[in-house]
């Protein structure tokens, strides 16, 4: 058996996912997986089903199979040549059975979300007296050990310890909503990434990740080097926003003002906030009572940083057999062959994998804070 090429492995099971039986893989028509940098990622498996033999007398074969019950765990592994990579780890949340009048075109569609869906089930009253965010987050994440969640927490630059005699922040909602809410305070993100091994997940709470080695470059219009089927870039001049307002410090109101994005490293040589002749200004949103000047400044900066993520957007589609790797969101990728304004490094916002027998496409969205490459060369 040759290992070369791209292979998909499907694992399903009630609590521990095991390799799916051969009949599943024969019936599997299409796999669609969406990875988002914010919010949850999702998957969709489409199986062809039928009622052909005596075993299918009662029901469509796969529809009653115990491995495909709702809330079961699904793990997808893609092997590029030799390296197995976990594409998705999630829970079945929806099922659609579409019986058809035409023979052979009935389908069972299984849809689900990543394991953070399990953190979004039970609403509670969260009360953590005198604790700062990183400690609260670690406590919440460690409650989901059966999903193999490993917390990776980057503490925000300034922490405001709530004194129990003054205030105790209370949040009503699910663990997931609370983690997102705490991330929003600093312009941070909470995201669950599958891998590195099956049945393991990384729970990341911190600034959008822009560091690390850029992924394999996307080459546009470069002859035999091209690996992108189609791509387009949009520049939105209305997106970049500075924030101004006032906050209390030392008994008096001091101005809060932001000027530029503090996301590091910068990706564009002409960031929109500095080079555009006019940018929007918005007012500081409400800061919680008692939160100090530092918290207000942090929130203003978070709003500005988030607004610059939408200035220059590139979206397109690539053929994974030519690209030879899995493009992952929440990281950097280089673009080359699109001219100086649109070349250079981008932050990958989301990637949709579309897999069917003999075909593997990835649709992607890239963003950065303005036009112009920062480096003279993008490595392939």
């Amino acid at each position: 058996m040759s290992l070369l090429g791209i292979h998909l492995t499907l694992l399903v099971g009630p609590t521990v996912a095991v390799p799916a039986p051969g009949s599943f893989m024969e019936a599997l028509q299409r796999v669609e997986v969406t990875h988002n940098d914010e919010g949850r990622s999702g998957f969709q498996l489409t199986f062809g089903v039928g009622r052909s033999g005596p075993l299918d007398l009662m029901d469509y074969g796969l529809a009653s199979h115990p491995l495909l019950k709702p809330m079961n765990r699904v793990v997808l592994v893609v092997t590029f040549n030799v390296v197995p990579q976990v594409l998705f780890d999630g829970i079945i949340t929806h099922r659609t059975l579409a019986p058809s009048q035409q023979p052979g075109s009935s389908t069972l569609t299984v849809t689900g979300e990543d394991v953070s869906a399990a953190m979004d089930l039970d609403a509670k009253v969260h009360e953590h007296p005198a604790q700062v965010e990183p400690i609260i987050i670690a406590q919440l994440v460690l409650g989901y050990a059966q999903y193999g969640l490993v917390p990776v927490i980057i503490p925000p630059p300034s922490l405001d310890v709530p004194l129990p005699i003054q205030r105790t922040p209370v949040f009503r909602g699910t663990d997931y909503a609370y983690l997102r809410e705490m991330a929003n305070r600093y312009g941070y993100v909470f995201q669950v990434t599958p891998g590195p091994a099956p049945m393991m997940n990384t729970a990341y709470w911190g600034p959008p990740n822009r560091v690390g080695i850029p992924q394999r470059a996307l080459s546009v219009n470069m002859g035999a080097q091209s690996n992108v089927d189609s791509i387009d870039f949009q520049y939105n001049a209305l997106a970049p926003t500075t924030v101004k307002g006032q906050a209390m410090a030392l008994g008096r109101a001091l101005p809060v003002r932001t000027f530029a994005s503090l996301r590091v490293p910068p990706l564009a040589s002409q960031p929109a906030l500095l080079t555009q002749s006019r940018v929007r200004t918005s007012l500081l949103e409400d800061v919680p009572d008692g939160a100090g000047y530092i918290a207000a400044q942090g929130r203003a900066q978070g709003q500005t940083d988030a607004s610059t993520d939408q200035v220059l957007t590139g979206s397109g589609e690539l053929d994974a057999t030519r690209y030879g790797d899995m493009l992952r969101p929440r990281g950097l990728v280089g673009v080359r062959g699109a001219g100086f304004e649109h070349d250079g490094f981008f932050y990958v916002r989301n990637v949709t994998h579309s897999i069917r027998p003999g075909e593997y496409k990835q649709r992607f969205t890239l963003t950065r804070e303005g036009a112009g490459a920062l480096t003279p060369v993008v490595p392939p």
Partner: protein
Amino acid sequence: MLDPTSRYAPLETATLTLPDGRVAAYKRRRFIPANTSLRVLAEVSVTESDRLDLLTHRTLGDPEHFWRVCDANDTLNPFDLMREPGSVVRIGMPEF
């Protein structure tokens, strides 16, 4: 900053505070995995002009994974592996 295909990429990064206060980051030592549970994908006989990177490209698809072949044969020095024509090189099934 290691390439994801590197054998050192999955290792833990530790930090050490030097006497002058600087903090140095380093990778922990890597041990060659014991091959008791190795699943053998193929066994290849070495020919006169063959090279390890060519062999790896033929069998595993990417020459940068030559270290996986070395690991499967308990070889510390990659140049020893292909020295003798006719010797048999095991190719292991890659794992996570």
